[in-house]
Every structure is written in C-alpha cells, then in structure tokens.
C-alpha cells in the first residue's frame, strides 16, 4: 500500500472523528478535544507530504507544523481559560445550559 | 498595666522596622543552623543525645518510679511488711490493687495479705499507694523492662512477683530505705518494750482461744475462699 495514501486516510478519518466530537459533545472541554484532533489530522498531512511527497528543500511541511503546534497550544490555553471563566460564572461547562444569548 | 516597647535585641524580633533585608537571607540563616547541627552532631555530645538503648542505657535517676513492689524483711516473703489494711486499695486512682486479708482458721486476721495483686497493665505509676501506706510496706520500683507477650496473666502481678526484700529497697533507694529502716527500728524497740510486758498475758489468752478455734475450722475456710 502507498504509505502516503495510508497516512492521508488516517488523517481524514481522524479529522472526521474530531468533527464528530465537536458536533456531538455537549461538554465545552470535550469539544476542545475534538478540535485538537482535527488540528492533529492536518499536521499529519503536512508531515506525510514532506516525507513522501515531492522533495521539499525549504522544509515547509515541518515548519508549518511547528507553527500549527504553537498556535494550537495558544488556542488550547485561551479556550480553556475562557471555559474556566464561564465555569466560574455559571458553574457549568455544558453548552446546552449556556444559552443566555438564546432569544 | 502599661505597655512598653521592646528594648533589648534578644527580645525583639531580628528585623528592625524599615530595615531592608536581603531576601533569602533568612533562608540561609536557617541553612546555617541545620548545617551546624549536621556537623556538630558528629562530635558534640550536647547535640547528639541519642542513646543506643539495648547496648547502652541512659542513667536513671534514683527517684525514678515505675510499678510498685512490696517489701519484706529478712529472707522470707512471709515477712511482708504489708498488713493488708487496704488503704492503698482504696486510694489507688485506677483501682488496680486487689487485696485479700489472710485469716487464720478462727477468722482472726493474721495481718498479712493472702492475695495481693496489682494489674500493672492498669497501674499508672502514680505512687499514691506508696505515699499513703502507713506501714512502709509498698514502694515504687525502678524496674522498667517488663514487656511481655502475655496480655493477661503476664501483666497481673501476684504477691510472689511483687515481693522484694528490704535489701533490694536499700539498693534501689538507699536514702529512703535507710530512713525507713531507722524509723522502723525505733518503733520496733518501742513496741518491743511494750510487748514484752504484755507477752505473758497474751500467751495465756492465745492458748484459750486456740482451743475454741479448733472446734470450727471448716466454716472459716469456706468463708475465706
């Protein structure tokens, strides 16, 4: 089997799983889990193309992954900080109950 | 009462108000103290007070008291000074003393304990029994290695276990014992003089009573048990 195809399949399924988690979870923190999965799926693609794709002398793949990891960490930190703030105010992280903007 | 402010440096905390102290200096002071102790504990007897118990023992004060013992004169434990008056039994705070007076067949008190038990698992070494005893019969022992694996009988001391000679007392607490012996001697002499006068009469009395007692020995024995 083509390793690139294998990795791309893996990343697609992982992305889909992340999307599923984002759509079906109620808990804000677990939605973040889904987002992390999606980001990782994308990262796998970058590394896979760097490794098995056409020669990449500028190493764009790994560098993009580095940026992606840095931003993912920032995103997780901010996301969790917001969730914690909400939790302090409302004592819940259940998105169904956080409906004060609901008309 | 008038509050006055602290004056001597030893009595005020080390920092003076407003003085700038290098942060962390206090930590190093503490480290210096433990460091000094760490080093000095190797040679300074003041610092290293630990005694390796079974091999070496710390000196025990002659006043040290542990559990009580009964004193007997001479060589036989039949010569207990105790007259089974039960004062100690009554005063004992945890009530760990059990005394039964020995009587002869006639029910007459022999002025000595038939049973004298101390439950040392209950005894709290207060020394009140020794203090209240008017007959100098019970004193506090200095023996402390009494551990046993028998929780019940092993810690219930009977008369035989409790009785120790006057010589032992003398060795244990020479000061107290010699004072006691001197006092007892004086009393004895006084008593002996009085007793000698009464002796003849008493002897006659005793003989007549003995005849009466022989008539009903069985009753008494049953009553005592």
């Amino acid at each position, binding site marked *: 089997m083509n390793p690139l195809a294998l990795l791309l399949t893996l990343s697609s399924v992982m992305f889909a799983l992340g999307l599923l988690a984002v759509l079906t979870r109620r808990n804000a923190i677990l939605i973040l889990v889904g987002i992390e999965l999606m980001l990782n799926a994308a990262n796998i693609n970058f590394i896979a193309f760097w490794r098995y794709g056409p020669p990449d002398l500028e190493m764009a793949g790994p560098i993009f992954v580095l940026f992606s990891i840095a931003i993912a960490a920032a995103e997780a930190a901010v996301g969790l900080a917001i969730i914690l703030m909400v939790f302090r105010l409302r*004592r819940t992280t259940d998105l169904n109950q956080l409906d004060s903007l609901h008309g | *009462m008038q*509050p*006055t402010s602290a004056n001597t440096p*030893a*009595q005020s*905390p*080390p*920092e003076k108000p407003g003085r700038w*102290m290098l*942060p*962390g*200096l*206090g*930590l190093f*002071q*503490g480290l*210096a*103290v*433990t460091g000094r*102790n760490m080093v000095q504990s190797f040679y300074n007897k003041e*610092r290293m*007070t630990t005694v390796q118990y079974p091999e070496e023992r710390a000196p*025990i*004060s002659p*006043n*040290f*008291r542990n559990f009580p013992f009964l004193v007997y004169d001479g060589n036989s434990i039949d010569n207990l000074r105790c007259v089974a008056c039960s*004062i100690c039994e*009554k*005063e*004992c*705070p945890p009530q760990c003393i059990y005394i039964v007076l020995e009587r002869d067949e006639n029910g007459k008190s022999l002025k000595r304990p038939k049973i004298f038990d101390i439950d040392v698992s209950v005894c*709290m*070494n*207060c*020394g*009140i029994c020794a*203090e*209240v005893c*008017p007959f100098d019969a019970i004193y*506090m022992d200095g023996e402390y290695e009494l551990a046993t694996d028998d929780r019940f009988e092993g810690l219930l001391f009977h008369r035989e276990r409790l009785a120790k000679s006057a010589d032992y007392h003398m060795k244990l607490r020479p000061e107290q014992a010699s004072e006691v012996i001197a006092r007892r001697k004086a009393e004895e002499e006084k008593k002996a003089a009085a007793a000698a006068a009464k002796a003849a009469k008493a002897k006659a009395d005793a003989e007549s009573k003995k005849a009466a007692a022989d008539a009903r020995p069985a009753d008494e024995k049953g009553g005592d048990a």
Partner: protein
Amino acid sequence: MSVEYTDSDRLLRVSLGPQHPSTHGVFRMNVELDGETVVKLKPVFGYLHRNHEKIAEGATYLSSMPYTDRLDYICPLTNNWAYALAVEKLAGIEVPERAEYMRVILAELTRLINHTAFMGFILGDMGAWGSALMYAFREREKILDLFEHLTGARMMANFMRFGGCRNDLPAGWREQVGTLVEGYGPFLDEMEKFLVGNEILLSRSQDVGQLPAETLVNGGITGPMLRAAGVSYDIRKVDRYGIYDRFEFRIPLGEKGDVYDRIMIRFLEMRESLKILRQAIDQLPEGDYVNPKARIRGFKPPVGEAYGRIEGPKGELGFHLISDGTPNPYRYRVRPPSFINLTLLEDMCLGLDLADAVIILGSIDIVLGEVDR
C-alpha cells in the same frame, strides 16, 4: 473514602482526621473546600474522651491528682498546680513558702517545655521535616530529665499535693536548673534564627488566622493566643496567685494576632520565663516542702465551692470543685484552655487555604487529652 460533591455549589468535602498527620492527636476537621479554600470547617472532637470529670467525682481528692497529669500531657505540672490550688482554696490549706517557690520553678519549666515543643510542632505543620521538632525535643529532654530526678516520672509527675509538694528537692537539683536556664538562652537564640528570619515561614504565618481582639475576648480565648492579639491578660498578673507578685517579669503583647504573632509571643514568653526562673532559683528559701498539717490519708474538705485557676502555658487552666464534706468532690469541673481556644477555629480558618487551616490549628496549640478529657 469517596468523592462526593454537594450538588448545589460543588464543594469538596474532606474529612481531615481523626487520623491525619497534622491533627495533633485524634481530632477531626470536617472541611468543605472550594478549590483549596476553606468555606466551612466543623471541628469534631471527643475521640479521646476519658470521662475525667465523672471519674474524679467518684474518687478521693488525692486520687484525681494523677489524672490531671493526663489532661495536657505536655505540661502535667501546671495541671497539678491548678488542681492543688483549687483544693487548697476549698479546704483553706496554707502552702509553705519553699513549696510555692518550687511550684513556680516547676510551672515555668513546664511553660518552657510547652512553648519549645510548640515551636517544633508548628514547623512540622508547615512542612519543615522535623528538624525544629527534634531540636525542641532535645531541649525538652533536658527538662524532662530534671523532672524525672525530682518527681520520679518524666511526664506524669503527680507531684503537687494539697499544701505543698510531694517531696523535697534532691541535692543538686537547684544547681541543675540553674545550668539549664543558662543554657536555654542560646538555644532560644538558635531556634529564633532558625525560625523567625525564614522568609517561607514569614510568608506562611503572617496575616494568617487573625481575629479581632473583641471576638477573642468574647470567645473566652486565653493565653498566648489572646496576648498575641494585643490583649494584656495574664492570670499571673491578674490573680497574682502563688507568689508571682514577687517576681519581675513582663507580659509580651502581639500586634495582629496572626500565627506569626503567636509564635513570637511564645518566644518572648519563654524569655520571660527564664527571667522568673533565675529569680526563683536565687530566692528559693529553706523550709517545709509541704504543709505539715496537711493530711494525705482521709482528706475531707469542708462543704463549699472553689475555683482555682492558673496561667497554664496554653491559657487559663481552672478547676471548679464543689465539696459536700465527703472524701469525694460533689462536682468536679475542668476549664481546659485548649478546648475553649479551639472553639474559634472555624472563624479563623474561613476563606483561607487548607494549608492555612492546618497551621492555624497548630498555632492554637491544642492537646487532645485536654480538649476531650
């Protein structure tokens, strides 16, 4: 143990004790935590209840004396004194001068023991791994040796009698106390260096567990805890029981009443105790060590009522006795300082960290033998 949350506000309920490394015995704090912040604290005690008062009512007056040793087992001799003082008041027994001096010496030595051990315990609560405690116990051991030499027991002294003390000072004891007192000052200096400058200790103990002085007074708090809050109340000065009016000493007063002040006040009190000891050793007269008229056997006080109190190392220690003329007291009641000081524990801990609650409990300086009786 299970994890449970109150549904309404999701607090974590933790039971600290009865077996917990820092509860100073079998004491239990039911704490409700929000994160690490204490929002509710309920002290639970009684695990060490030994029925002391009722037993004393069934026993002769003398028989209760050894039991008082076991109230606050860190400092038995002050307990002895408080009880003896109450009975002496009840029966109107005079105490000879020499006995009074002996009592003062013993009580101040006891105060040294208690405060020294306190320094070790509080550092243990703060997490210093036992060093301070070991230094404290090293010095305490020297005093205990003196006690053993005098009373025959290291801790359970059973030494005071109604009208004096049980026996006279052994030869050389007075000089031994003298050398001990001389050596104690340097030890306190070292301890102070070890503790007081330490930034971690400062930040842990300052502004922790303070209450307004009024609350403390209303709560009946006594002893170093009250004086740390700046209230000048020391029964040695208020009652001038015994012969305390003959000595020159001062009452150190704190500023804020936090844990740090409580530590410092105890340091200063130890230094004052050393002063008293020096004076007492110098002035110790010859004479009877016990009132020769006092009876040991068959002691029956007249019908009446008396309350004897002293300044124990932990606070006001009082014994209230009612006599009906029999050899047993009709009513026997202890006013234990640690128990009453403990009552304000929750007020001191609310809103602080769990770690603070632990050192506040330590700074109250309780002994469960006395709290539960």
